[in-house]
């Protein structure tokens, strides 16, 4: 009897080990086994990096917990929605309730999942490629758009019909940024992402610099001179700088290109990319000089939209930098102590009369062709992200510079004192936005863009700003690598 029992136990153990063997292999790896790759959910870019310059792929920070919630009418059509920013999902969830109220005959219920940045996009791409498993609605970060758009309408559902009621009020250049190469609209934008210059006025005033001085800044030379004045006034202590330049993001280069009206992608999918542009060279040369002269430091961890950057700002190690308007939400979420200190102004330009802003980053939300009811999903998505109701909530909750331009000059919207963003800064953000309305340039995001960004953030910017390689030499190397891909 005992023997039989033992035999049963042993064979059970054998079966178990065979089954386990299918997925295993990790246990007997001597050194670094890479099987764990599958559970690399910590690829996370933190929530913060969501909209960060298209170059953000590598610059990750903390892990974001995976969160799943289901919202809406249980009897309605059930949809799935993925995002890499929890705040986006929270926003959509609120819009689901509004949608169900407004459309009792077409109610929906959505299950929202928040993944880390990396997983969100790799999972989406893999499921699109496989033809199964994709969600109905998914957030796609600007830098990932070329990858996800590769399948055009075999992968994605065009939004053109759904957005027709709102399209007239939307900023065309922003919509165009999310068009496929076939001219159809596949992504719905959250914001313009216009770049502006942020100034820590409270600290500047202590150094004897007034708002008039800041307003008088027109060119980058003026701006650098003001920085020198600030550093002189505080006695140039160690660790204090005017600004920090990025090795992990290409925002500065984008601003330079927009000011000269250039585009290193060549402007379209088939054009030859060229990073050896006058604007890029000028900006990089200037940045290198600032680092050498002590006016600027290299951003800790690569750019300001990371924990290290927030800390740097909180410590008042840097007092002025250019960043897109969506960076306002980082102040609210990560630097609430700074309330009332900061002033928003136009970005400086190289030569007077140039355009002074560029739309950076963004989340294009797509409806997949695998959706159970793509038309319904598209209608909801456009309602959430483009209708005045949706746009108002985007401004209130997420603090983005919305694409619906009809709202920009609406006093109730732009000067609403109950809005936390309006009260956080010294001036009304939308006043700045209105003043640069016609000066917001675009740098295209095309299939070669991820390669350019990768080369810049991994190699070129580090070479120039950290290792002192000459601008011409570093750009030549970059050009060689990028040309290989085309």
């Amino acid at each position: 009897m005992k023997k039989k029992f033992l035999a049963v136990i042993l064979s059970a153990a054998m079966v178990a080990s065979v089954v386990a063997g299918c997925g295993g292999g990790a246990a007997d790896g001597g050194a670094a086994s890479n099987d764990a790759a599958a559970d690399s959910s910590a690829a996370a870019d933190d929530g913060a990096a969501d909209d960060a310059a298209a170059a953000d792929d590598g610059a990750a920070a903390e892990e974001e917990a995976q969160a799943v919630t289901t919202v809406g009418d249980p009897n309605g059509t059930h949809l799935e929605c993925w995002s890499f920013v929890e705040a986006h999902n929270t926003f959509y969830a609120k819009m689901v309730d509004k949608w169900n109220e407004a459309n009792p005959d077409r109610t929906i219920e959505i299950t929202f999942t928040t993944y880390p940045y990396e997983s969100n996009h790799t999972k989406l791409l893999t499921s699109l490629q496989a033809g199964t498993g994709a969600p109905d609605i998914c957030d796609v970060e600007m830098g990932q758009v070329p990858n996800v758009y590769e399948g055009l309408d075999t992968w994605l559902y065009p939004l053109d019909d759904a957005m027709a009621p709102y399209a007239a009020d939307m900023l065309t250049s922003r919509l165009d940024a999310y068009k496929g190469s076939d001219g159809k609209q596949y992504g719905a934008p959250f914001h313009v992402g216009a770049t502006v210059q942020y100034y820590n006025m409270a600290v500047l005033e202590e150094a004897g610099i007034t708002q008039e001085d800041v307003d008088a800044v027109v060119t980058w030379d003026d701006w650098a001179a003001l920085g020198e004045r600030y550093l002189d006034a505080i006695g140039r202590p160690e660790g204090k700088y005017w600004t920090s330049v990025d090795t992990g993001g290409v925002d500065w280069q984008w601003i330079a290109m927009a000011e000269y009206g250039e585009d290193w992608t060549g402007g379209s999918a088939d054009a030859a990319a060229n990073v050896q542009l006058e604007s890029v060279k000028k900006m990089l040369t200037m940045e290198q000089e600032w680092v050498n002269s002590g006016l600027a430091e290299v951003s800790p961890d690569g750019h300001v939209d990371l924990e290290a950057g927030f800390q740097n700002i909180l410590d008042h190690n840097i007092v002025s930098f250019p960043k897109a308007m969506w960076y306002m939400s980082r102040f609210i979420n990560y630097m609430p102590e700074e309330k009332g200190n900061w002033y928003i102004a136009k970005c400086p330009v190289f030569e007077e009369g140039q355009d002074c802003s560029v739309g950076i980053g963004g989340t294009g939300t797509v409806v997949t062709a695998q959706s159970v009811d793509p038309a319904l999903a598209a209608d909801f998505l456009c309602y959430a992200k483009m209708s005045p109701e949706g746009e108002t909530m985007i401004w209130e909750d997420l603090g983005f510079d919305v694409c619906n331009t009809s709202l920009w000059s609406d006093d109730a919207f732009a000067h609403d004192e109950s809005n936390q963003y309006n009260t956080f800064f010294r001036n009304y953000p939308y006043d700045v936005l209105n003043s640069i309305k016609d000066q917001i340039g675009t740098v295209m995001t095309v299939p070669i863009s991820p390669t350019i960004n990768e080369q810049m953030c991994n190699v070129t910017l580090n070479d120039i700003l950290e290792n002192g390689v000459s601008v011409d030499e570093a750009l030549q190397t970059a050009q060689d690598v990028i040309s290989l891909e085309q």
Partner: protein
Amino acid sequence: MKIKKFLYSQKAAPYVFVIPFILSFLFFWIYPLCSTITMSFQDIGPASSEWLGFKNYAKLLRDPTFRTAIANSFEYMLGTLILLIPFPMLFAVLLDSRLVKAKGFWKACLYLPALTSVVISGTLFRLMFSEYPTGQMNVITSALGLGTFKWLKMKATGLGALLLTACWRWTGVNMLYFLSGLKSIDTALYESAEIDGANAWQKFRYVTIPLIKPTTIYVLTISVYAGLAMFMESFMLWAGPASPNNIGLTIVGYLYNRGIQKNDLGYGSAIGLVLLVIALVINIIQLIANGTFKKEER
């Protein structure tokens, strides 16, 4: 009755027992391998795939980033071979000797890191090697008067951090392999060596080393592959496959970047196959040199 006969048949039984392995091997290893080979000659598109011939491989040859990745993986592999074979062997011999007290405790200590998740340990190492003055390593170097370093931005310190992570994690595992090898050595051999007047070093050199050679070869073989195929450590240390000046880019990191992130599975497959070929060639040379394929001398 027939079933019983079948089950008790000495001819059929072995096949019945190995069939689960054969099936999973065919399905999970051979099929993916074949499909990787075909894919490496293709451009995998959204709807259809286009035959490219050797274009992916031709591009690989001209790709400077791929060369960086290979160089990094090689340096890391050599580093792990230098650090992760002699030291674990030494620890194993020490633990096997009478010199060490509380053996179970030391074994557990050295083995414990292997049980932690790379995701967590990699993140901790990243924080330790952070460039801020408050990072653990910078606290130590400043206390020693050496100033602070941007550890993960420079080639030498970046590789050092990777090797430290690897040593911390794998020393205990390799030590266990060597311990089991040592246990199988007949103590009578040591006794007779002692009678012949051998000292401790001579016993180690002429008895231990030759007799644990099979273990050493096993550890060497898996270490060569594991070193070349390293991905997680670098991925966690730099929080993604990208690192400044590509100092942390490995072959598999590049495969992930191309195949998954940039969705170019054809090019990714070509990278994977090159890795397979490199690892195979090195290991075959190494195994021949070690005499593994020779007929056993009886």
